[in-house]
């Protein structure tokens, strides 16, 4: 199964940040596992048609975060990293969310907005549904 990154040069997000976030996402979802080799900076920059410095910055920030490691002989590989890996149940929920949202006709941006909204909201117990939206103003 091939893993890819896709950048949008017209997006407001810098290309290096798009690359960094997508590599992080692939590692978080298990599509890239520890030991997987990434393309060289030059090859990835050539394929995306961006400057080598753009890819270099993305790789450097990923390396500083411990997500990847660069070695002279093996190149850049996915490292252990220090952020805890989501377990299978969480990954399954995320996959189900995406499939459900897309089946409902939501765009990927709308799905991301939903997730961000959930992150901004109060912490809920697992399995406890959030009360209806028409709650009194000022309640927790």
């Amino acid at each position, binding site marked *: *199964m*091939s*893993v*890819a*990154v*896709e*950048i*949008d*040069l*017209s*997006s*407001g*997000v810098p290309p290096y*940040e*798009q690359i960094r*976030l*997508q*590599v992080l*996402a*692939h590692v978080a*979802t298990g*599509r*890239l596992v520890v030991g997987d*080799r*990434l*393309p*060289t900076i*030059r*090859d*990835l920059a*050539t*394929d*995306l*048609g*961006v400057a080598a410095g753009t890819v270099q910055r993305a790789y450097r*920030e990923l390396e500083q*975060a*411990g*997500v990847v490691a660069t070695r002279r002989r093996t*190149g850049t590989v996915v490292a252990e*990293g*220090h*952020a805890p890996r989501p377990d299978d149940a969480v990954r399954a929920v995320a996959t189900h969310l995406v*499939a459900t949202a897309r089946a409902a006709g939501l765009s*990927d*941006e709308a*799905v*991301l907005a939903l997730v*961000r909204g959930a*992150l*901004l909201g109060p912490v809920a117990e697992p399995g406890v549904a959030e009360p209806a939206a028409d709650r009194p103003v000022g309640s927790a």
Partner: protein
Amino acid sequence: MNGLVMILAIAGLVVVVPLAAVAIATLAMAAGRPPSVDPSQAAAAARRHGLVVAWVAWVTATAVAFVAAAAGMTVLRGHGRPGGLVLALLPMTAALAYVAVHVAGEHSWPRPTGTVRRAVLAPRRQPVARLLTGACMLWAGLLAALLVGTGLTADEGGRAITVVRGAASNTAGPYPGWYYGVPLLLGAAALVAAGSYALRVVAHRPAVVDADPAYDDASRRLSAHRVLRGVQLGLGLTLVGVQWWTAAACINVELQTIGPVLAWATPVVLVATLVACVLPGPRLPGPAPAPAPGWAPPPTPGAADPRATESRPA
């Protein structure tokens, strides 16, 4: 003037016609297969670029061979010895020109355009063309061994072989020896180095956007096949020439084993070289089925979100 016309006519007959026939046969073998449907516009542009480069490489090689043949025969007629060297180097000179065109073509490979760009997160592998790589190594090895052998066994002049039997001696030439051997060894080394460099450029050129990785991989293998086809043709035809002249000299000095062996091996190598040259390269796959969810890249973040930066690990 008449002499020049005759030289050009001979050069055309001996070099241009066979080379053009090989080129046409090669491209006809490829065209004879049903065309595959290009999976995307970028893939179609890349395929057309590759085809144009292949045609220009053949035309350039034929033109260089013709000029080298005419120059060699002119020098041979006027000054003798150096003309033979020019003719001996002709196949490798034409092959170097062929590879040079492919290198230029790979450096000018279509680059990604548009605002949305995609790339596979996997390291590049050197494209493999096993049969042609094996042929190149075999011809280069045999050529080097034969040239070193003739260099060590040539007489003091370096262009003839002398066999002494009792009081009598037998001399025959032309014989490769070091006079031809050193330039031919250098030419072979240059051709192999140029071919290796061309394969590196093929491996690291931009990927074909909007096509799945299998298509891009096949495209690189096809380019590698085209490059190696020319390299093995140059090495193989040079080996044929060296074998032939060595066999003739050995037979003339009555070396009863090696002469006939080389003489019989010459057409075998020639046929093998030509067959390897016209073999069609790997076929480019048609449109892939819709990618599985696992292949699709994660969505690109849209507008800048301050919280997005807070998600970055410390």
